[in-house]
């Protein structure tokens, strides 16, 4: 568990970061989000002491890190940055092995860890281990950058706009991959981003920052339903926040009992008395996808099926609209 207490950084009379405190539970992902210059990167860099704090402290599992030499401290914290910073003169495998080597792991253990991470990030070792960074695409380089940050099994993974320099399609794909890997490995993550969609997607909680302070720290749903200020509201984007809210919940949380729907054999379903057959929704779909499908098909309910193809419920527009209620 990481505890940040009253972290402050002054540059002359200016307080770039002004008394930031938060806790990061084991396995949790927290996003620091805010506009440029709000102090989010400075906060991140104070946690691994790339910037020395003017005041405040950081505790790992209750132990104050102030007395630990910065280089030693950083070995316990993964660090992935925008633009990646891969070592151009070292192979992919050597890049990923950086922290394990600094930690003095025995050779076979390093090799096994490198192979494990390459597999995990969808880069088969046989093809990628001996390549140099300049031989990789942007997305592949970024994967290696994140794999390298995770290699030493850090207590926390610090990420500064890790997917910022990628095209939108590659970025989405990497976010999905990273989410799956994080869930599987239970990695604790502190993420800095200015992209609200990225924060909603990757983080369990969001700390919204404005001029060096945290103005709201909440789960995505609470942030959307109850923004603490006009600033938070504008950052969330007030126009499509209903849709954002829908993307946070899955259909299974809201669906009703399935009645009158029958499979007709070609993978589609038909409601008794109706004459159109419709493709069902997957149980893993979000409410946003459900709403989109309903609107597109021009119907007011759709069946939901599980992985085996069996019908598990129906979702209708009325329930989806009701989900938005309770927000102010």
């Amino acid at each position, binding site marked *: 568990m990481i505890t940040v207490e009253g972290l402050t950084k002054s540059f002359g009379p200016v307080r770039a970061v002004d008394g930031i405190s938060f806790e990061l539970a084991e396995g949790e992902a927290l996003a620091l989000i805010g506009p440029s210059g709000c102090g989010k990167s400075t906060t991140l860099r104070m946690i691994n002491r790339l910037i020395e704090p003017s005041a405040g402290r950081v505790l790992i599992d209750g132990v104050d890190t102030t007395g630990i030499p910065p280089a030693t401290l*950083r*070995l316990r914290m993964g660090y992935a940055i925008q633009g990646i*910073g891969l*070592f*151009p*003169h070292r192979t992919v495998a050597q890049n990923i092995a950086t*922290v394990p080597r600094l930690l003095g792991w025995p050779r076979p253990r390093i090799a096994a860890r490198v192979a494990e991470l390459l597999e995990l990030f969808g880069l088969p070792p046989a093809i990628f281990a001996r390549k140099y960074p300049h031989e990789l695409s942007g997305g592949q380089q970024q994967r290696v950058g994140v794999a390298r940050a995770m290699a030493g099994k850090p207590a926390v993974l610090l990420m500064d706009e890790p997917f910022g320099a990628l095209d939108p399609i590659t970025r989405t794909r990497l976010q999905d991959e990273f989410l799956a890997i994080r869930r599987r490995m239970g990695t604790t993550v502190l993420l800095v981003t200015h992209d609200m969609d990225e924060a909603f997607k990757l983080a369990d909680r969001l700390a919204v920052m404005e001029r060096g302070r945290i103005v709201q720290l909440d789960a995505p749903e609470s942030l959307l339903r109850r923004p603490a200020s006009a600033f938070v509201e504008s950052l969330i984007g007030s126009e499509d926040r209903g849709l954002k809210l829908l993307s946070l919940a899955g259909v299974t949380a809201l669906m009703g009992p399935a009645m009158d729907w029958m499979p007709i054999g070609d993978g589609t379903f038909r409601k008794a008395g109706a004459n159109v057959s419709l493709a069902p929704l997957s149980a893993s779909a979000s409410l946003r996808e459900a709403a989109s499908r309903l609107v597109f098909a021009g119907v007011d309910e759709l069946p939901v099926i599980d992985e085996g193809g069996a019908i598990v419920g129906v979702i209708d527009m009325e329930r989806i609209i009701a989900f938005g209620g309770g927000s102010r």
Partner: protein
Amino acid sequence: MAQRRGLLRIVAAGIAVALFSIMVLVPRAFERPLAALAKFGQPAIYDRDSILALTLSHIGLVIAASLAALVIALAIGIFVTRPAGAQYLPLARAVANLGQTFPPIAMLAVAVPLTGFGARPTLVALFAYGLLPIFENTIAGLKGVSPQVVEAARGMGMTGRRILREIELPLALPVIIAGFRVSIIVSIGTATIGSTVGARGLGEIIIAGLQADNLAYVLQGGVLVAMLAILVDLGLGFLERRARQPRSA
């Protein structure tokens, strides 16, 4: 295209090696063509000393001075690119530039009263003259390393010393070698004038030729020095290219 250039380099290197070895080991082989340049009764081939001994002495002078310049320029270049030494950068630059503003012959003239005749003043002049290119290229090479790469290394827990050794120096190496290449080539040429103050080297042949108005000597000495410079240039160029490209799987 690149392949053809590589082939051309190998052929050039082969010719230079062959020509140079023959001139050094069997100087008499070129007696006939050089005789055409000598005046009647003059010897065409320098015979007051062994060409091999002169060549080795010349190379020894250049290597001693250049290695000393490399060590000092590298050390100062590294120091002034660290946060602690950054304030000394302008001073170090001024001193290194000073070495280059003096013509080498003036440097010799200043050095002789201090160190006496022989190899010593030549070493001083070559050393002072060789500092600047290595120093400037060390700085350029180290400053050319991507700040993101250094930041990533620091963020992962590498110490400053380790970053220098494992990241900055390897990445700056091609540029540093390029500086050393310029420095040593200049030294090979400049070392010839060391013979005016009694340093043993290939300059002796040229100076003897000039004094006796013997064009054959001048040409023999000149070609020897030129071949040596070309060979060193090719060799260091090869090292520079190797350091530049990571070999790929």
